[in-house]
């Protein structure tokens, strides 16, 4: 009671995170020293930056006058190749992902199947697209076939994992009700599981189409075909206006995919 009297009228401060004052100050001082030391190790070649700034300026200025015409044949060809790669790899990747996702959901798959499917997913996720693409280019040679296989492989890791997680968090009672009617396994999946995860599957698939298109622009850099190859050539020739045109087209396509996916996801709720 007397304690509360002494508290009234005195200000309150949040207790410090580090209790000991000397340690608190030592940590702060150490952090400042580190910042200074780290800054001193940055080795900048200012003359190189001066030359580079000029190139950077040219690159950015190129966006004000993108050149769609002089290499239009190459751009069109590369873009078509990218789009075909995107669609084909998405369709194949998603088709393979669905059975793997079913196997990777602990609540519907027995343990050995679960472990097998989870390891496939882990391998697909562990290997970065570029590394897979370099390997597949080495095997299949330059061109869109390597890119298509890379993207299909990457789609499996992405879609199976996220779909399996959605299956694992589904409502058990609904699935149980279908099982109680004496349905076969496939009927059970079709009636008890599929309707519950359909919105997620559609949303993820559209998102993956979007990712596959963007990745197809990168994979060209390691020789796996598509618009990336055209883009790489344009950079190598210092044709920044053509590169700018390609980048603008990519941005446009990604934006329209974004818009379409928004509409579709709204519809399937």
């Amino acid at each position, binding site marked *: 009671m007397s304690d509360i009297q002494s508290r009234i009228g005195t200000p309150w401060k949040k207790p410090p995170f580090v209790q000991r004052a000397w340690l608190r100050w030592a940590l702060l001082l150490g952090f400042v020293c580190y910042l200074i030391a780290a800054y001193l190790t940055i080795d900048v070649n200012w003359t190189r930056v001066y030359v580079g700034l000029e190139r950077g300026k040219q690159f950015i200025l190129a966006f004000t006058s993108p050149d769609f015409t002089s290499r239009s044949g190459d751009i069109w060809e590369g873009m078509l190749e990218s789009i075909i790669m995107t669609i084909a790899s998405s369709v194949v990747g998603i088709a393979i992902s669905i059975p793997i996702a079913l196997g990777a959901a602990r609540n519907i798959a027995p343990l050995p199947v679960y472990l097998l499917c989870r390891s496939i997913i882990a391998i697909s996720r562990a290997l970065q697209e570029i590394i897979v693409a370099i390997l597949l280019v080495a095997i299949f040679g330059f061109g869109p076939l390597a890119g298509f296989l890379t993207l299909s492989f990457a789609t499996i890791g992405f879609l199976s994992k996220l779909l399996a997680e959605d299956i694992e968090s589904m409502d058990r009672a609904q699935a149980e*009700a*279908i099982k109680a009617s*004496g349905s076969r396994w496939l009927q059970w999946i079709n009636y008890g599981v599929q309707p519950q995860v359909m*919105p997620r599957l559609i949303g993820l698939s559209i998102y993956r189409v979007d990712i596959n298109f963007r990745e197809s622009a990168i994979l060209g850099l390691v020789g796996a075909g598509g618009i990336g190859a055209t883009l790489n050539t344009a950079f190598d020739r210092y044709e920044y206006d053509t590169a700018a045109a390609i980048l603008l087209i990519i941005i446009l396509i990604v934006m329209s995919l974004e818009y379409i996916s928004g509409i579709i996801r709204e519809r399937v709720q």
Partner: protein
Amino acid sequence: MLRLEKLVKTYKTGDQALKAVDLNVPEGQVMALIGPSGAGNSTLIRCINRLVEPTSGKVYLSNVELTGLSTGALRRERRRMGMIFQEYALIERLTVMENVLSGRLGYVGFWRSFLRKFPQSDIDEAFRLLDRVGLAHMADKRADELSGGQRQRVGICRALIQDPALLLVDEPTASLDPKTSRQIMRLICELCKERGLAAIINIHDVALAQMFVQRVIGLRFGAVEFDGLPEGLTPDVLTTIYGEEDWEATIEKVDDESAVA
């Protein structure tokens, strides 16, 4: 018609949900299963159609022993046991009609069900059942557009279209208001009488159970504590099932209720 012999269920955690339950349900009898939460009511119902695998003991459904059946044979026997669920367990994103027809999955092949091409007789029966529960005009609505009472009616249709000999009913009135609860219980009991079905209804509302059923089983710690007529549920009996409490307000006068209904 249904006979349980020394049915035991021990969960992996070591909890003994059922301790050697013996039970005999004759043809056409509607029976309520009461008992405190965790007494094994849900487990008992699920052990009958093996949604939960019993640890030991035997289940006979008109002389077919269920616990030893292979998956295929179990599937065929499950068709004869309609199940109605707590919180309805309808497939929310499918239409009312698809939900009702899903009760026929045990009878049709995969492709027919996948393409939703059910035999005309099934479709006719589905409409007859929906009409019987007053929902024929809702056939093409999605299940999640329905109210709680309507959903449970669809759940009842789904169980009945299986053409079962036995209904397993797990807390059909949980999360329904008192009026709808009575309507649903009345509907289940009427339909059982019309079709001569036996039913095991797991229910927490003792007064509601007394109003509608012919026999009550009281479970406590996984063992049958009471087996008799609904009138036999005296405060003393309820105390042995649930523990000490003032029971006078719980036990309704059956005459008053039928007058209200």
